[in-house]
């Protein structure tokens, strides 16, 4: 169902080998008030082509965990591998594209110029860059907007452009940190639908941080429920929903049951905390 044009799996790996594997990952920040356990003993394994959402209240470590996968933070204990490498090696091998909550587009570059930026940094030649830009702009339905400047686009379109930028260099993994958190619900619904379509077409492995239960349930093949103090995984829910998901699926009984389970998981995690 997911035919990628250029399979980036390492041939030496067994097909079932996880793309991201965390074993006993902990991350402690020293602060003036003593150590803060941002992550404690996190075990998780994410396979090729999965869509995994991380949900939990603020301070539960969901963003921190995504950042450790991206080698933007360093675990203080445990082992974490990405494509069988350390996160830092994977970063150098350009294994992932990262999408932040804000689009972070340069105002002095056009949309195409912004998408071109990582490609220029990575040394793609001009013809290749142009072909890739055209392809990813088409993927996020911004085909006509390459020559526009970011300020000429709406917030939702800007965020789509930033997703296109993360897709342009063929990374296997797409890490998204509350990418639609700053957008209104109508735009968010549309982008969720578009993201699912994009995921189906590209077969990327997606790690997705959110604090919206419907968003997590609608998008994910697996939902990782986390809770704070210390940041940890309290529940991992396999979604029985089919990969093909029209928006109406959110009115179904099974969707409601899933949402309920996520909510229960969040409540249980919160109750176990100190407040």
């Amino acid at each position, binding site marked *: 169902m997911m035919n990628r044009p250029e399979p980036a799996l390492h041939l030496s790996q067994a097909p079932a080998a996880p793309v991201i594997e965390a074993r006993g990952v902990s991350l402690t920040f020293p602060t003036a008030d003593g150590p803060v356990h941002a992550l404690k003993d996190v075990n998780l394994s994410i396979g090729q082509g999965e869509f995994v959402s991380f949900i939990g209240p603020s301070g539960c470590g969901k963003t921190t965990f995504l950042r450790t996968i991206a080698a933007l933070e360093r675990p203080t204990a445990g082992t974490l591998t990405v494509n069988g490498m350390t996160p830092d090696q994977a970063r*150098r091998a350009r294994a*992932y594209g*990262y999408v*932040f909550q*804000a689009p*972070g587009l340069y*105002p002095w570059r056009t949309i195409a110029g912004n998408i071109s*930026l990582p490609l220029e940094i*990575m040394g793609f030649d001009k013809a290749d860059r142009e072909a890739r830009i055209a392809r990813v702009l088409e993927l996020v339905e911004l085909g006509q907007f390459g020559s526009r400047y970011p300020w000429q686009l709406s917030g939702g379109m800007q965020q789509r452009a930033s997703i296109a930028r993360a897709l342009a260099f063929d990374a296997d993994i797409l890490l998204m940190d509350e990418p639609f958190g700053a957008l209104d619900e109508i735009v968010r619904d549309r982008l969720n639908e578009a993201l699912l379509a994009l995921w189906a077409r590209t077969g990327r492995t997606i790690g997705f941080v959110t604090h919206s239960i419907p968003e997590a349930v609608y998008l994910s093949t697996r939902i990782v429920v986390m809770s704070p103090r210390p940041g940890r995984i309290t529940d991992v829910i396999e979604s029985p929903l089919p990969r093909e998901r029209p928006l109406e699926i959110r009115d179904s009984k099974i969707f409601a049951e899933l949402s309920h389970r996520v909510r229960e998981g969040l409540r249980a995690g919160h109750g176990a905390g100190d407040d």
Partner: protein
Amino acid sequence: MGRVMTETTVSTLTPPRAARRGWAGQAGRSALPVLTVLAAIVVAWYLAAVWMNAPWVRDQAARAGETVTTGQLLRATMAQERPVLPAPHQVAAALWEGVTGQSVTSKRSLVRHGWITLSATLAGFALGSAAGILLAVGIVHSRVMDLSIMPWAVASQTIPILAIAPMVIVVLASVGVTGLLPKALISAWLSFFPVLVGMVKGLRAPDPMQFDLMRSWNANGGQVLRFLRFPSSLPWLFASLKVAIAAALVGTIVGELPAGATQGLGARLLSGSYYGQTIQIWSALFAAAILAAGLVWLIGAVARLTLRRMGLAR
């Protein structure tokens, strides 16, 4: 002087806020208050000129055994050859005479002296700005440089430039270096600092997310500088260049004051004060002020064009 410059530098180094209106529109809206203030200054100046020049007129009259009427007194205070405070129209006339009254190669031409000052100012400004930018790049990339350069840069600006300038001129003259270069060095001394402070801030301006993005693309330091830090720093750069060019002009004029200088607006100021030629002093002063205003305006215009093109001033 150095100390004053340091303080103005720091307070002026906030990047310009978004300029939504065109400069023509802004000029139209701000013309009235500016003209009102200007008129008030001119009136106050005339009153001060009368008040300050009157004693000399009365002395002369008393010596000749004459009495002067108020009308005569007023007229006399406006037309002295060496007034304590020349009237605005006298300065304007001298300025006009200095610019158009003779060929630009004449020793009395303000164009000639202005050009000599301007060329040293531009040379010093270029040197100082380049030094400021290079040092800022070093400071941003090296913790050792950050800790070692900044205190010295600040210290360099606390030394009064009036004390340093003659030494620089004399020392360089003794090794045979005269003319533009010594003045440009003093000018660079004053102008590197605002650029350094502004660029250190500007190069650190992008938010952490932008740096994380660069890291996720495995960009090297040079690429981060070229694609992210440098473009983001431009509003700060232009703001600091405005301060720097004015400081460069002050530095050049100070460099023209020590003994031996016969050319440049600073030399005009000095020779005017030797011979009590107050009108000459004031016209040189105004020439310098007009030059400074023109230079600052020019940088402002380049800044507006560039930042608007880059979408940083929208």
